[in-house]
């Protein structure tokens, strides 16, 4: 994705949701897109598959899949990409499945679309395979069940199975575990990692949870108020965060080692995207803001090898946390 700018036209005015988002996902890697609620990360995921609501407008930018421009593809061609090359799963598994159809029906319907040549029996076998892939026991009986008869974790597994029905290259996972218990969350993350290794699947993991990202992702992109402010390998980000926001974010994570110290937080609140601040959108809350920060938005520049930051005035103090 290159410099994507997306706005929403609402009754209250124009919401500048994405203001120049740039990142890339490499083959077989899990990229973590991290940011707080409302920073536009979900919209980013939706934009890739052109699933944005009707009142949205893509002002400019580029999205390419292996060199193929998909931003400007017409709808009938997009249908070929969705679920086939790029798939997406969402946050609340219970509401992401159609409540009046049994799981099997939903899975088979999608399989049929992506594997037109296969017959009824072949599709059933394929369905069982997919369910086994996500480690669901007893596929026969699971397929008869209705979504509301499954637990949250199982629902999300089913959704993953359905999403991976085609020969998926990229899976966009929009906060897939946020609505689930921590233990289930751990299981699903392990599953994701396994899928990456066995299928060579690339994953765009959208989340606000730094812990998850550290576990799973090879690279991380930090997003704030509509644009990427820093991106690098996981190691680098945690060892040497450069953007003030990233530093603030990581410092805010509470661990046992902080016992007895004052809790750190970033002052202020996330800006409204209806009337975003001028220049760098973080500058009102930034302890390192200087004049240019108020004037224009800093570009995402490669500061070290593979480490990109968008900031005019990066803190010079070395990073003390591990």
């Amino acid at each position: 994705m290159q410099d994507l700018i997306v706005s929403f036209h609402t009754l209250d005015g124009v919401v500048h949701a994405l203001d120049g988002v740039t990142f890339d996902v490499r083959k077989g890697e899990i990229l973590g897109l991290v940011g707080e609620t409302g920073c536009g990360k979900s919209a980013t995921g939706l934009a890739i598959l052109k699933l944005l609501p009707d009142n949205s407008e893509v002002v400019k930018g580029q999205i390419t899949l292996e060199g193929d421009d998909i931003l400007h593809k017409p709808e009938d061609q997009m249908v070929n990409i969705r679920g086939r090359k790029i798939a997406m799963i969402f946050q609340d598994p219970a509401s992401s499945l159609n409540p009046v159809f049994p799981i099997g029906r939903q899975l088979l319907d999608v399989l049929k679309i992506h594997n037109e040549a296969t017959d009824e029996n072949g599709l059933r076998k394929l369905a069982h395979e997919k369910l086994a892939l996500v480690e669901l026991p007893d596929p026969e009986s699971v397929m008869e069940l209705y979504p509301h008869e499954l637990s949250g974790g199982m629902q999300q597994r089913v959704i993953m199975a359905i999403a991976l029905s085609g020969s998926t290259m990229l899976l966009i996972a929009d906060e897939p575990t946020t609505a689930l218990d921590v233990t289930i969350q751990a299981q699903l993350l392990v599953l994701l990692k396994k899928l990456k290794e066995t299928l060579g699947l690339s994953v765009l993991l959208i989340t606000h949870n730094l812990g998850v990202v550290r576990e799973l992702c090879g690279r991380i992109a930090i997003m704030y108020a509509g644009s990427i402010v820093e991106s690098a390998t996981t190691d680098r980000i945690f060892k040497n965060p450069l953007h003030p926001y990233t530093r603030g974010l990581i410092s805010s994570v509470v661990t046992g080692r902080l016992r007895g110290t004052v809790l750190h937080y970033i002052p202020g609140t996330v800006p409204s995207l209806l009337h975003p601040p001028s220049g760098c959108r973080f500058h009102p809350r930034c302890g390192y803001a200087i004049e240019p920060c108020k004037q224009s938005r800093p570009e995402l520049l490669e500061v070290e090898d593979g480490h990109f930051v968008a900031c005019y005035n990066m803190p010079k103090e070395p990073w003390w946390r591990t």
Partner: protein
Amino acid sequence: MNEAVSESIPVQRQQHFRELRVFLKLVLKNPLSLTGTAIIVFFVVMALVGPFIVPYPRQAEGVPDIANQLRPPDWQHWFGTDELGRDLLSRIIFGARISLMTSATVVSVAIILGMPLGAVAGYYGERLGAVIMRVTDMFLAFPPLLLALVVAATLGGSLLNAILALIITWWPWYTRLAYGQAIATRNLPFVDSARAIGVGDAKIIVRHILPATLAPILIQATLDLGSAIIAAAGLSFLGLGAQPPTPDWGLMVNMGKTYFLQHWWYATFPGLAILVLVLGFNLLGDAIREATDPKLSRRRLI
């Protein structure tokens, strides 16, 4: 504590105004609701002003003019004349008043009866509420006009009796509507806190429950104003409503039934009047309903 409360009230009012503005914007933007409002306004004006500008006022009230019996529409009688030679246009204009008044009466009395009943039933729940709702259900089990037919027939045919019959038929709908809302409101935490402070039941019902039930009832009322007109016309059509020589639209269609195969205008125009007025109410009501339904937000993907 007092300051906090008195501060929040102007804020609340501001919020209400803002909601109102957004609501009006949505309703007026829609060409359908605009047309509906226009129609209603037109008929109301006609009802008010009509008697003064009507071409044949005395005929409208029933004075016959046999010489001009059953004339097709022409320049002197835009809608033609009936079997007693009376100008249909004038009678239709007069009829507007009757129709509007009838449906307004029916709907408002039904609300006055039904809404408090439903609110009380919902608030007290358990036994009192269950009893009230059982009775309401029984009334609701009747196919709507059937009850009205029976009552009107029992009481005899007249406009007043028709109105009475319709009120008896209509009140249970509002009771059920109010009941549903009352139950939802009753469970909200602020009702409990009001009780805890010691606010009496009656006051809670009047100040909190009733206003909450108002919104869906008003929407329903707009639509019901139209339905009541059709229902009243249906009764008149069967002879159970207004009696001749009253220029009631349903009655005119009924009279026209005998002649209309040869004289199409007689039944057509009064019926058309009914259609257009009811259309107006339905257009407006439908648009309001869509604008206020919280579930119909703006996300659209297909």
